[in-house]
C-alpha cells in the first residue's frame, strides 16, 4: 500500500476523539479507586493493636509518608510516561522520594547490624509480606494499567515499571497499618524486597501489558 493512499484512508476515517485528561487529574481518579481498596483490606485484616502508638511515632510516620509519596510520584510518572513527548524530568521525579525512603530504611538496617546481634535474630522469615503486598496492590495495579493503556506505549518498560511501583508502594503503605513488623532490616528484606520483586515481574511483562493497539473502527472499516 502506498503511503499517500494510507494518508487518504486515515484522513477519510478520522472521527472526533476525547482527549486524555491531564496526568494529575487521572492520578486523583486512580487514588479514588485505590485508597478505598487499601482501607477495605486494612479493615478486613484488622489494624495492628499498637496503631495509636505508631501514629504518634515520628520515624514510622516519616517512613509511611515516603512510601505514600513514592506511590504518588511513581503513579504520576507512569501516567506522564504513557503520553508521547512529555519532559524527561517527570520520569526522574519518583527517584527522589524512593531514594529517600530506601535511604531511611537502609540507614536503620545498618544501625541494627552495627548494634550487634546474630543475623538469624535480625532477619527472620516473614513470607506473608509478599502475598499481603500483592493483594493490597492488585486493585491499584489493575486500575493503573487500565489508565495507562489509554495512553501510548512509547516507553512501555518505564511506564509499567512505575505503574507497578506505584501499586506496590501503596500496598506497602497499607501493609504497615495491620502488619506489626517495623524492624528496618525486616522491612528492607521482606517489604521493600516484595515491592522490588513484584515491580520487576511486571516490567518483564511490559510489552504484553502495554502493547500498541490500533483503533478498532479503523480496522473494521
Amino acid at each position, binding site marked *: *500500500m502506498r*503511503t*499517500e*493512499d*494510507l*494518508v*487518504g*484512508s*486515515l*484522513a*477519510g*476515517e*478520522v*472521527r*472526533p*476523539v*476525547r*482527549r*486524555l485528561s*491531564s496526568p494529575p487529574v487521572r492520578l486523583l481518579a486512580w487514588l479514588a479507586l485505590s485508597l478505598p481498596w487499601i482501607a477495605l483490606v486494612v479493615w478486613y485484616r484488622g489494624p495492628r493493636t499498637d496503631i495509636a502508638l505508631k501514629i504518634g511515632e515520628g520515624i514510622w510516620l516519616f517512613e509511611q509518608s515516603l512510601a505514600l509519596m513514592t506511590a504518588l510520584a511513581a503513579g504520576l510518572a507512569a501516567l506522564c510516561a*504513557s*503520553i*508521547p*513527548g*512529555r519532559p524527561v524530568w517527570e520520569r526522574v521525579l519518583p527517584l527522589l522520594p524512593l531514594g529517600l525512603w530506601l535511604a531511611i530504611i537502609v540507614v536503620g538496617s545498618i544501625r541494627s547490624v552495627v548494634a550487634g546481634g546474630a543475623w538469624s535474630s535480625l532477619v527472620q522469615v516473614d513470607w506473608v509480606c509478599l502475598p499481603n503486598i500483592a493483594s493490597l496492590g492488585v486493585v491499584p495495579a489493575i486500575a493503573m494499567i487500565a489508565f495507562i493503556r*489509554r*495512553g*501510548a*506505549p*512509547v*516507553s512501555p518498560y518505564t511506564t509499567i515499571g512505575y505503574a507497578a511501583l506505584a501499586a506496590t508502594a501503596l500496598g506497602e503503605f497499607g501493609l504497615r497499618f495491620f502488619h506489626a513488623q517495623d524492624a528496618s532490616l525486616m522491612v528492607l528484606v521482606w517489604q521493600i524486597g516484595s515491592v522490588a520483586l513484584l515491580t520487576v515481574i511486571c516490567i518483564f511483562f511490559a510489552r504484553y501489558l502495554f*502493547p*500498541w*493497539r*490500533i*483503533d*478498532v473502527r*479503523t*480496522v*473494521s*472499516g
Partner: protein
Amino acid sequence: METGTENVSLESLMQAAQAGDGSAYEHLLRSVVPVLRRQARAKWIGSIEPEDLVQDVLLSLHSVRHTYDPSRPFLPWLSAIFRRRLVDLQRRHIRKAKNEVTTDTLPETFSGDETNWLEDGQGDPDLLKSAIASLPAGQRRAIELLKIQELSLKEAAERTGMSISALKVAVHRGMKSLKQALGA
C-alpha cells in the same frame, strides 16, 4: 525532527483532527510524511523498507491521537512515537535475522507439477489489485501483510500495532469483501 516553516500550524491542525476534521488531518499527515520519510532513511532498519516505518508511525499516530495535548508542541509528541516505532522495528529485524536461513534454491514442496507451478494461475491480477485497493485501510493492510507478504499473525501484529484478534477480524472481513468483489 524539523518540518521547516509549518511548525506553528501543526498544533492547530492536530487539534482540528482530534475534533474530527478530516481535511485538517490529511493536511497534517501530508506535512509530516516527508519528515518521517527523511528520518526513516537516516536510521538503520536493516532490510526493512523505510516506507514500512513511515506507515507504522502513521498508523500509531492515528491510534493514539487522543493523547496529544494541544497546549504542547506537536513535533516532540510525533518524535516520541517515531523513536518507539523505530526501536520496535529494529528489534523485530534483529530477532528475525537471528532465525533466518538464506538459501539459493527454494526447495520443492512436492514433486508433482501442479504444486510447483510458477506461472500466474486463473484470475485477473488487475481486478484483484483494484479490489484490494478499494478495501478500508485496516483490512487492506491486514490482507497485504498476511496474504501477500505472508507474514505470520504475530509479525503482522508487531508491525501494525493491531492485536492478533483484530488482525484476524480484519483479514476475514477483507477476504469476504474480496470474494464478493471478484464474484468468487
